[in-house]
């Protein structure tokens, strides 16, 4: 606790507030197993630098993937990551099962069916990323929906959120993994609700393009 206060104090002296409890000169931990590949000289510079502790979600398995990890975090509710992990792996399993079966049953165009569930997930997320979004801006007592460009990070967030929303919206009789799997498969093929939602947003942005110069902040 004392460390925290002293750090916070130091941060405020420097004139900025950081969200991290560690000051800026703390180095990021290295998330790699093969430390032998590092140069000795490269490592020497870490000798006297304080290093942040590693997050407990860091993983060095070869099966790790950034988008998968993000998706996992978005599925998580109430910190129950274990459950979320199970749901996501079940989702990927369903996707892979469907695709593998399709591939084995259609011998002529075997090469065309993609059985890599993770790749399909990434495709789906990429396909449903929006380019713009609408923000509400008040001008003369009237709220205008103004199209503004969005950052890359937010577009990824929105696309994953929409996928999950669509999955949650569906009929409650089947489990989440099934629903999510079908949404992802749809989105990966450029159809389905999520893609429609994105297109709707784009259309609305287009019809509101006259307000674009109202953008303020």
């Amino acid at each position: 606790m004392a460390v925290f206060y002293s750090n916070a104090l130091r941060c405020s002296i420097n004139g900025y507030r950081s969200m991290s409890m560690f000051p800026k000169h703390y180095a990021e931990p290295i998330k790699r197993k093969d430390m032998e590949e590092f140069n000795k000289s490269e490592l020497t510079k870490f000798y006297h630098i304080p290093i942040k502790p590693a997050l407990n979600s860091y993983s060095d398995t070869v099966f790790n993937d950034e988008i998968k990890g993000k998706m996992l975090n978005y599925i998580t509710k109430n910190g129950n990551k274990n459950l979320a992990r199970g749901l996501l792996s079940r989702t990927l399993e369903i996707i892979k099962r469907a695709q593998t079966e399709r591939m084995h049953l259609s011998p002529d165009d075997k090469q065309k069916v993609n059985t890599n569930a993770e790749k399909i997930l990434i495709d789906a997320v990429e396909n449903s990323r929006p380019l713009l979004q609408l923000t509400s801006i008040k001008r003369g007592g009237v709220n205008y929906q103004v199209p503004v460009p969005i950052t890359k990070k937010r577009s990824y967030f929105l696309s994953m959120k929409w996928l999950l929303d669509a999955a949650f919206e569906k009929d409650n009789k089947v489990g989440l993994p099934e629903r999510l799997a079908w949404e992802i498969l749809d989105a990966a093929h450029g159809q389905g609700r999520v893609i429609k939602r994105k297109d709707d947003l784009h259309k609305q942005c287009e019809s509101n393009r006259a307000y674009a110069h109202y953008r303020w902040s």
Partner: protein
Amino acid sequence: MKMFRKHFGNLSRVSTQLQRNVLQLSTNAEASPVEGTAAASVNEFRTAVANPGEHSALHVAKFYTIPVEQKKQIFTGGGLPKQYEQQIKTFTESCLMVRSPALELLHYIKNADLTKPVVRYVLYGDNGVGKTLTMAHVLHYGAINDFLLVHVPWAPNWMKRPKEASNATQEGMLDLPFDAAAWLVHFKTQNAKLLQQLQLKTSKEYVWSKRESTPAGSTLIELVEHGISRIKYATETTVALISELKQLSTAGQCKVMVAIDGFNAFFHPETRIFSDNKQRVTPDRITLTQPFLDITSYDWTNGVCILSVDKLAMTEGYMDSYMPRYLLGTAGFEHIDPFVPVHVDNYTDKEFHSYINYYLDRHWINKTPKGFEEQLKFMSNKNPYTLMQLVKSL
């Protein structure tokens, strides 16, 4: 030789990996020239010998395919784990790996003197090491080599989740009519062809009620069909059928292969079935237990008994060890006392490698970064079931 094989195995993995990468790249492209390499790598972990009787140490860690009709005949009513069935459906082929416990068992069975009292073989091992699949392999052998199969896919189902329990005619006993009927259907699908061929007859008249009876000299098929159509008498029919089978095989008219998965359920301290006075019933008060205990005793000849003991057949508090003595208890152990234990273990390195190759061939593992196999080996501890779970989402 071993070194060479290992080396060659690595080569084949590389080739499969290459093939994988090409595939990933050419998801949209037209056909790529990988068919040749695929055909070459197939022989590495597959064998064309589909008859379990001909399997030898040469085929260890290789996959053989069960023909579709035979699979339908033997495993329609159960016998393969549910998830394995799912895998078969996904891969659109029913493959089993030839493993040493099954080979050991087959070796014993082939060299056994059938005129002597039946030998009981007990499969044991930790959770998910492949006891049921070993049994499936041997069942396939039995079905091909004219054994009448008396196969209970998973005995704990009767003790843990019966469809319906009703009072039997005997005082204090409970009947599971639906489960008994289901088992009769299973018996019929497995043995229909053989029963037609052998034309086995009943030795005495069975009187079910005032009006219904099966006369002496009617075929076993009639007996079974009666049990299926009159569900009320299904259990009694099962008892009759099994005692008939024992007599017939002792007389040398047929060979019988008994295979009971989760045999220790018959000796569990209690079941989940409640009697009329709301008390848990012990397995020996279930009428269905009797015939199967009867057929596993050694007082008949011309047959083999393959039993498996499983931790999962027990309930909580009784699952400390997978050893037969612990799981069967004193009564169970004494019941099958002179028996041949067959230990089923986790994969060996070779089997593991072969399985990974099979998964790669079936496009089930799609991510093949450097060192993935070692990692899977480490994470699964080479346990078949754990490996299956891990690989599911890759």
